[in-house]
């Protein structure tokens, strides 16, 4: 800027690291404003032993800046973020250089910064939205918190909904582990029929606890977003099924096999009851619908059992074989599941209804 430029001798000594510290500082100050000298210094430094290490750092910084620039395209947050990025890249370059080449190569820092500057240069003139002094925007690396591999996992977690996050999941684990512990630890031989009798209600309960003002603490906010309605219900139902179907079937398979039906025999009834709940929810709401289907199943299976003369487990075995055993029963459940799915598809607009005030 002032017309003065660093001599070749100065540049070489700086690159070698034998320039006295005060001279090095004044040269660094000059490099911040003089692109021409910065380029010469970085060329000289690249020729030294530190060259390869610096090339690596430069590449990393540039990749980082490009990544940030790409992430921010079209966002109104440009100013804030680039402010953050600038601090970040600058510090990273400096500390990195000092670590890599203790003595001489600190000249690479201005070079790295000037290489990074085109990314934030054009926006530096944009006024930052006025923030009162009490609201400091701390320089942190927030934008880099989710690397490119992260968001997908995060989004899958978000899709889970309150049931899988909340008390329902421990309850499912308790049923599964409890059944296995009862059978193997306490020698309870009839654990499998009881598990089969309870299992179809588990996903229904999960669905009941997944959506709506009574189940979801964030429902009031969720209801005003475009995701609200059937899409979110289905996503959360899928999460509930993905947890409960394998877990309870595995638990059932680990139980001693009496003459009770196969451990997987509950899958179709469980699916059918879940879909029936969703279809019915289009008419009476999710909570009432799950109460009807889950309660209905429990009444049908356990109701006669409790009053049975031949002992509850014997009667339960009979009930279960008639409800679950054999191809006709399973075919019936499959048909019920398909019918419910069709009904749900037809009744889809019901999920777009707003809450009645």
């Amino acid at each position, binding site marked *: 800027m002032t017309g003065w430029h660093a001599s070749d001798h100065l540049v070489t000594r700086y690159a070698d690291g034998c320039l006295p510290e005060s001279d090095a500082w004044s040269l660094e100050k000059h490099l911040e404003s003089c692109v021409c000298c910065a380029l010469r210094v970085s060329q000289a430094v690249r020729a030294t032993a530190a060259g390869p290490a610096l090339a690596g750092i430069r590449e990393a910084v540039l990749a980082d800046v490009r990544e940030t620039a790409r*992430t921010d395209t079209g966002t109104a947050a440009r100013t804030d973020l680039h402010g953050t990025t600038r601090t970040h890249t600058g510090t990273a370059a400096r500390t990195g250089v000092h670590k890599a080449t203790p003595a001489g190569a600190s000249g690479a820092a201005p070079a790295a910064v000037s290489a990074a500057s085109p990314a934030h240069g054009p926006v530096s003139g944009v006024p930052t939205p006025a923030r009162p002094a009490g609201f400091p925007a701390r320089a*942190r690396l*927030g934008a880099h918190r989710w690397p490119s591999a992260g968001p997908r996992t995060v989004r899958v977690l978000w899709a889970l909904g309150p049931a899988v996050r909340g008390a329902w999941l421990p309850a499912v684990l308790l049923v599964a582990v409890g059944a296995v512990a009862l059978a193997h630890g306490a020698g309870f031989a009839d654990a499998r029929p009881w598990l089969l009798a309870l299992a179809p209600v588990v996903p229904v309960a999960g669905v009941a606890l997944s959506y709506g003002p009574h189940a979801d603490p964030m429902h009031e906010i969720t209801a005003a977003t475009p995701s609200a309605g059937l899409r979110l219900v289905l996503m959360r139902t899928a999460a509930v099924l993905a947890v409960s179907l394998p877990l309870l079937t595995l638990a059932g398979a680990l139980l001693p096999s009496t003459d009770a039906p196969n451990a997987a025999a509950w899958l179709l009834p469980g699916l059918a009851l879940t879909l029936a709940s969703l279809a019915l929810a289009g008419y009476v709401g999710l909570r009432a619908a799950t109460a009807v289907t889950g309660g209905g199943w429990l009444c049908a299976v356990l109701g006669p059992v409790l009053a049975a003369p031949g002992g509850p487990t014997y009667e339960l075995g009979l009930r279960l074989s008639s409800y679950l055993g054999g191809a006709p029963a399973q075919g019936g459940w499959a048909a019920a599941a398909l019918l419910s799915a069709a009904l749900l598809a037809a009744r889809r607009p019901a999920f777009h209804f707003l809450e009645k005030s």
Partner: protein
Amino acid sequence: MSTAPHTASRPVPEAPAATVRTTGLHVRHRRTVALDSVDLDFGPGVHGLLGPNGAGKTSLIRVLATVAEPSGGRVEILGHDTRDHRRRGEVRRHLGYLPQDFGYYPGFTVREFVAYVAWLKEMPADRVPAAVERAVARVGLADRVDTKVRRLSGGMIRRVGIAQAVVNDPRVLLLDEPTAGLDPEQRVEFRELLRELGASSTVIVSTHLVEDVAAACTEVTLVDAGRVAYRGTPLALAALGESAGGPGDHPIERGYTAALRAHRAPEARAGRPSASEGAAR
């Protein structure tokens, strides 16, 4: 004055087009009438919604947020009728809503909470991290972004609620009691944010703190017993208070009580027609 209509220095003369419009809006909660034939329109700017407790402010905000269904009448937001569920997604993408009460999942940090809502609002995934940073910084919680929401104080949770509402840069922003639980300094900062947001979006703020209205709002709507009691600028309301001499310590407060009395007086004589009115649909 009328010779040069297109000079650059002159502000746009006509009122901006309404982004939110209600026509004959009825809302009932079981037997009681929450809103009774309310015709309102809001354009860009900050609109204060004042009124006594139970006047219908929250009912109005919830209907505008497309959360509750009106029992009659029509709500148009950004030109779309909200009864049409195919258009509702489009409306909701441009909506920000801070409920009077809201919950959160126990494990959420501030960042996760706001990002989750951004995801629910179907923001493009690559824009979410930056938008979350910005929204959290706007409410002054940048240093708490990785704190669990349940560890925050009530006022901070309120600010997290504001951050989730503004994360998608909404064109229509509905805030139900946003300043409840904020200390005076935070309220001053919040009003600053309100003015900033109102420059481009339609902001509707329900409150019963008249200072907020006086300081930040471009227009006041006074609701009483499900009906619109008064509409005007804060200045006009203050002037009404000075001329009518209602009780109160603040000019707007005097205007508020004066407008309420003026609204109630003729009704008290004529009897309330709203109680007998049935469902509109």
